[in-house]
């Protein structure tokens, strides 16, 4: 398997930015690293002749999702995470097992994966190629509708969470004090729907 310079560079940048997302102590710095990570992923998509997915990756994840992360970080004063504090100490051993298992699966996939001999022409993964697949009833139209309905349910739930007074007035429960400070799930779902 020939690996050229650009593939190595892409892999190094991907791993480097991913480590930075986890390791950087300032949450805003980590979010910037996440943007860089998404951009490198988009570049990888471009190199795989999937330009439509690459652009969607930047627009939806690099653009909308991380902007919402940053909104939350800035509004909830979470920029300065406490340093060196292990919030979930009991999870280290299971996480290690999970990581090793993932590594085993990936190594197995790398050594046993057979690329299809004649991949169908994706035409750059353009809308003209993707649209008929996504929206034809024989293929994935119903799956798409179900996903859209799920997102709608989540949006409605978020609206209920954000405006608790109207709901609680009828059932005579006091409004949850911190419920007003959670407008973000709604925004996030809206961004996903974009």
């Amino acid at each position, binding site marked *: 398997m020939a690996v050229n310079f650009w593939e190595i560079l892409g892999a190094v940048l991907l791993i480097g*930015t991913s480590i930075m997302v986890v390791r*950087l102590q300032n949450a805003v710095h980590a979010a910037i690293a996440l943007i860089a990570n998404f951009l490198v992923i988009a570049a990888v998509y471009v190199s795989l002749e999937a*330009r439509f997915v690459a652009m969607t990756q930047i627009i939806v994840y690099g653009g909308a999702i991380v902007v919402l992360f*940053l*909104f939350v970080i800035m509004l909830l004063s979470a920029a*300065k995470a406490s340093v060196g504090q292990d919030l979930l100490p009991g999870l280290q051993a299971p996480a290690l097992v999970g990581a090793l298992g993932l590594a085993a699966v990936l190594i197995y996939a790398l050594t046993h994966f057979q690329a299809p001999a004649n991949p169908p022409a994706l035409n750059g993964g*353009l809308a003209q190629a993707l649209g008929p697949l996504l929206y034809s009833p024989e293929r994935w139209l119903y799956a798409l509708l179900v996903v859209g309905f799920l997102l709608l349910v989540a949006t409605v739930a978020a609206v209920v969470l954000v405006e608790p007074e109207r709901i609680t007035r009828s059932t005579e429960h006091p409004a949850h004090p911190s419920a007003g400070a959670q407008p973000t799930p709604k925004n996030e779902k809206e961004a996903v729907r974009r």
Partner: protein
Amino acid sequence: MKPLCCAEGRGLKAESYSLLSRPLLFALGSLPFLGLGMAQNASAPDNTTDPLWMVGIKAFLVVFGLLTAFAYMTLIERRLLARIQIRQGPNRVGPDGLLQPVADAIKSILKEDIVPKAADKVVFWLAPMISVTFALLTFGLIPFGPKHAFFGFDPWLINLDVGILYVFAVSEIAVYGIFLAGWASNSKYSLLGSLRSSAALISYELALGMSLLAPVVLVGSLNLQAIVEWQNTNGWLILYLLPAFALFVIAGMAEAARTPFDLPEAEQELVGGYNTEYSSIKWALFQMAEYIHLITASALIPTIFLGGWRMPGFLTAIPFIGGFFALPYLWMFAKIALFLFFFIWVRGTFFRLRYDQLMRFGWGRLLPMALGWFLIVAAVVAFKMPLAVLGWLSALALIVFSVYVVMGARSSQPARRVVRPGVGD
């Protein structure tokens, strides 16, 4: 002053910089090459691309041209605004003030570059870079003429089959410049200004995208050159998609933060917004990014709706002198100048929207209208109706809008303000 965003002061401490921050800068600094790499990977419709050195020369020309245009746009805008407001404007430096941009540039560079002590130094430096880099990345997409019109090479930098999506991707990332600038300044005014303006930009991005869906569906391609070619055979898209054109111009104005929507730098009421703490060349970089966005929008609008680099079709029908108008580049520059003038004119005419008005206009008016018009266009395309239907519908929309404006002017009443706690700035 207690910082708004953090529990304790976020001063520059040695340990807050992990060693990994530096590679982050290099990773982000190499991003412009993403565009260059795409230029190589882009499948042009006929699979011919210019050699890499030519792409480099053209990239340099685009950047150089944009920066020069930015410098003189400031002068032209100030002179035109002065004319609208019946005063002189800058006319002292050089003949007719022509050297004013040079003086401004020297002044910006030589001024003291103040960095607040509590600022996040890396992000403070990074934010103007992101702004100006991603502002520059879009313009290379605009076709300026037919193939091989640029000394035997193509008069565009990159020819992407996902062209319009690329425009959106770049303009989404450009929001981070404003966003991070406000946070990195570690000042309440800056943070509030940046949160407010990035929220506005993201909201108008939706209307921008929705209004562009109509031409994309009608043409059936995301490629800008395919759109220009379609208009050559079928007539300019503004004839069929007048509402989409109007919505796109308005949303584009908001994206470039021009005056009816220029909350990002509302200097009178909010000490500037996100760039309050910026000075010297960093401040100039934000100005640069804003004007480059404006120039790009003025090039994008005619490319998509006004026939691109081609001249109006009826001019060729004029006997004898019809061919005279067919100069390359002339029409594209003329159309860009037209829209730049229009944007300056609007700035001299309208006043700034309040923040709640801005958001209500974006979500309550622009987005539903863009969505509705897109549904109409999609129906026309889906049922294979003739194009003339869209032309008549556009005319009808114009009439309805005119009646609405006239009736609204007759029964003008003070704007209703809905104050909701927690919403707005």
